[in-house]
């Protein structure tokens, strides 16, 4: 038991080292090249500064990377998260909406439905989206990318139908608190991420779920033979991923005070996957680190903010992100090839993947 713990610890240390290193490199660069990057001011009792801004902006991505980690750990992938984000944002925006009402000459913003109900409906819709993915992938055994592709294509259409093609603006003050409010000097959304992360960490570290998930991702067939309910675990992963996307959608809608079904969360699935890969997780499934992915999300956001701040056209971010993934993958595959002596055993699903064998 003792030795296993030590080994686990070493592995986690190992896995978190690179994302932290990448983050440190970016921050050091920012420290030298961007003036006042580390400055944190207190304005009206709130902390302001680039660092706070990065964490705040990264919250939707952090949520999605948490969900994506679980899905990727199970050996799948969920590319529908961007569309689910759009759906959840659209539902919240249209249900809260907000009318301008004058009571005794004073402006009041009134929500169409109570905010709690709107948020609940949006989250339920997001979880249903996740369960739909689960149905296709866990139950029917469709390839994960293809299965989630359906919701990716349909989701945006559904979101557009909900908002009827308009950008819905929300006029309801309390709703903005989620995305841009401050609590004890820090943005409120940071607390949301922290709470959710704690919940997921408890789930994967203190319950058997994490162990089952790792087993499932490493080898589906033998997990099945061991008596694990493989399908149930997969359903859970996709449902959690949907939930994460739903929460992210609400945060985004609250941040920009509107819902744009066309552009909300466009390409965010790629950022989420990038975060997971940056977090040192193998795309082949198996061993995973949720914390690593959250750090990965921070790296992605820091990278984006840095590129904006340096003054390079923002579109270059795409090229840089792509090159980063390629480099990481090259390292992963190099390491994999060293340990994996047999050539090219990666045919078909569930086969030995290079990245997996690096331990």
């Amino acid at each position, binding site marked *: 038991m003792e030795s296993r713990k030590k080994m686990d610890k070493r592995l986690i240390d190992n896995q978190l080292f690179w994302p932290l290193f990448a983050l440190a490199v970016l921050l050091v660069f920012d420290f030298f090249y961007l003036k006042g990057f580390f400055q944190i001011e207190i304005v009206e009792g709130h902390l302001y500064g680039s660092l706070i801004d990065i964490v705040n902006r990264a919250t939707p991505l952090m949520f999605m990377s948490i969900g994506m980690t679980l899905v990727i750990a199970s050996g799948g992938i969920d590319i529908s998260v961007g569309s689910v984000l759009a759906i959840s944002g659209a539902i919240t925006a249209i249900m809260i909406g907000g009318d301008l009402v004058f009571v005794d000459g004073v402006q009041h913003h009134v929500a169409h439905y109570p905010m709690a109900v709107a948020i609940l409906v949006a989250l339920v819709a997001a979880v249903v989206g996740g369960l739909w993915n689960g149905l296709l992938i866990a139950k029917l055994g469709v390839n994960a990318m293809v299965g989630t592709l359906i919701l*990716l294509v*349909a989701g945006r259409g559904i979101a557009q139908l909900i908002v009827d093609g308009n950008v819905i603006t929300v006029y309801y003050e309390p709703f903005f608190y989620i995305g841009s409010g401050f609590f004890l000097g820090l943005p409120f959304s940071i607390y949301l991420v922290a709470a959710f992360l704690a919940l997921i960490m408890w789930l994967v570290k203190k319950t058997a779920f994490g162990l089952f998930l790792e087993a499932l991702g490493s080898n589906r067939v033998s997990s099945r033979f061991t008596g694990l309910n493989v399908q149930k675990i997969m359903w859970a992963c996709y449902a959690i991923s949907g939930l994460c996307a739903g929460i992210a959608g609400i945060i985004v809608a609250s941040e920009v005070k509107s819902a744009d079904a066309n552009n909300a969360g466009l390409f965010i699935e*790629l950022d989420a996957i990038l975060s997971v890969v940056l977090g040192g997780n193998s795309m082949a499934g198996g061993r995973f680190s949720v914390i690593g992915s959250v750090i990965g999300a921070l790296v992605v956001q820091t990278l984006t903010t840095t590129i904006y701040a340096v003054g390079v056209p923002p579109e270059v971010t795409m090229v840089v992100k792509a090159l980063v993934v390629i480099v990481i993958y090259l390292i992963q595959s190099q390491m994999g*090839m060293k340990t994996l002596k047999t050539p090219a055993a990666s045919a078909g699903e569930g086969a030995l993947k290079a990245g997996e064998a690096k331990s």
Partner: protein
Amino acid sequence: MKNLQINSKFVPLLITIGLFLALFAAGSVSYEGFFSMQVVLNLLVDNAFLIIVGLSQALVIILGGIDLSCGALIALSSMVAAYSLSHLNLHPALAVLAVLIVCSAFGFVQGWLITYRKFQPFIATLCGMFVARGLCFMINQDTVPITDPFFVTMATTRIKLIPGAAISTSVIIALVIVALYIYIAHFTKFGRAVYAIGGNEQSARLMGLPVDRTKVLAYTLSGFTSGLAGIVFCFYMLSAYGLNAMALEMDAIAAAVIGGTLMTGGVGFVIGSVFGVMIEGIMQTLITFQGDLNSWWTRIAVAFLLCVFIVVQRVLVLKREAKKRIRPVEFIA
């Protein structure tokens, strides 16, 4: 036994063709003016570039991979063409050549990463998509019009087939490429190797097929074809913009799947993609004729069809596998 296998191979394709005819019949009955040659030809005119990438997508999927970069490569090709015509004042032929070289290079690098560096095709082509879109904006962030006389002539020329029905030059290009692809996929060593690798890469390797070379070549061909589609796209739009052909790769994948190509690789017909595209097109036309439906219904309808076809495929595969081995079905996935 052999007869049976061929039958099940043709089933998705036949369903697709039947569905296309059914949709067309439904449209003809419901809407005035739907039953005309021009409606059918317009499907080709408006989707020529999609047909072209649908073909290459089908071939890559048959290989057991996927190519997500094709939409971005189309945007990049139009940008490269516009840039080399307007800024570098290149001859149109050279501009076309430049486009094809750039796109083939993209395809080659992706193929190399996938084959020799063991990237997942999904990741490698996703990176390619990012780089291509990023490059578009690095060349120019605005819409660039294409005013070159050759491109304009190609774009505006209409060839009359019968009175009242005409096609554009793009359609002819697309049809030539369809013929080429059918030849490549079904009548060459390369095509047979692609099917073999998609069926089982390891067996293909053990059989002595040039697996690595075929894979790199297939992705290079896919890049090259995306370049061709990009040029046809130029003829269609006569302008270039970095966000053009957004999410086109999804339409191409959907076309291939609806056309009966199995996502697991090894099974399918490139010609199926043409019908896949035609079905997507005819649904768009139906929704336009209907008039009071939002265009977003098209996406939902495409997704629905995609879903149905994937489930049908899955059932077919499960049945076949169940026949082959005495093993509980749920272990196979």
